[in-house]
């Protein structure tokens, strides 16, 4: 499900309507648009990557790519645009999940994605550690995904609830 740039609030997440309380009515796309409009404070390269992030968020298919671009931009731009990156970060935390399989054949366990680190591998490790609390990891596989694409039942939504 693609985020709707025209809606006041974020697209549905984890099976329920996305409540304003969770995303504050400030969809990540809106925040990126504000950054793009900031003009002089953004370099040409940052502008290109912001457009890439916007495009990936609109498609809402490749959460790995979203996180990679977000982390790259966060390192470069957060110091000057802290509030904007806080808003995008919180939006991503509310809309992404990590699907962890203890072995390739197992059913995935969904864990929340916490963006307290600045690189995707560190975030992946934190998610794996969170999943480890629920049992042994034999040959773990982790895939980041948009919650709206992989969470189908209230029980699963409850599982990733923070």
């Amino acid at each position, binding site marked *: 499900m693609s985020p709707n740039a025209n809606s006041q609030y974020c697209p549905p997440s984890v099976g329920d309507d996305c409540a304003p309380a969770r995303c504050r009515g400030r969809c990540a796309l809106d925040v990126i648009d504000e950054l793009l409009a900031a003009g002089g404070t953004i370099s040409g390269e940052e502008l290109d990557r912001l457009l890439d992030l916007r495009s990936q968020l609109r498609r809402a298919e490749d959460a790995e790519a979203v996180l990679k671009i977000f982390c790259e931009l966060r390192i470069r731009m957060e110091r000057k645009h802290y*509030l904007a990156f*806080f808003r995008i970060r*919180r939006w991503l935390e509310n809309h992404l999940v990590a699907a962890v399989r203890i072995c390739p054949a197992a059913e995935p366990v969904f864990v929340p994605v916490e963006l307290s680190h600045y690189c995707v591998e560190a975030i992946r490790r934190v998610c794996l550690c969170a999943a480890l609390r629920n049992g042994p990891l034999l040959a773990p596989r982790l895939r980041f995904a948009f919650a709206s694409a992989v969470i189908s039942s209230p029980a699963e939504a409850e599982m990733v609830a923070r």
Partner: protein
Amino acid sequence: MSTTTKPASTPVKKDTRLIDGLNLVLADSYALMALTHLAHWNVEGEDFFPLHKAFQEQYEELFEAVDEIAERVRAIDGYAMGGLGTFARAAQMEEFKAPLPQKDYVAALIVAHEKVVDDAVRTRDQAGEVSDLQTQDLMIKRLQFHEKTLWMLKSYLKH
């Protein structure tokens, strides 16, 4: 010649929409007060002293405000919302947990203040529609505080 004095404003009839709006701002303010208190207790780092002090000033102001808002609800013939669970459900503010980086406390409080502003603006306009100037005045006063606080918090985050 009439010996009675005309009231300064039209007497307010019980308006459930306005009472609901005021109660939402009450819940928002209470929830924000709790979050600001949490930030006051747990903030740490090089800017500890100014942030600790600023957060204290903010939650103290909010503590006085919730009383004023609740009493306004009673004055227009409604009942004030209460109870921590009820406030939390009504306000739907995203809670944060400690420890956080200093700037995240500030950013999270900005987001929470913005929520109060949205609801207070709506209630101010509803009060205007029914000519309840006292409630409108109270909401304007609340907005002045939240907008000033937003300016200060956002200034802190500026590079």
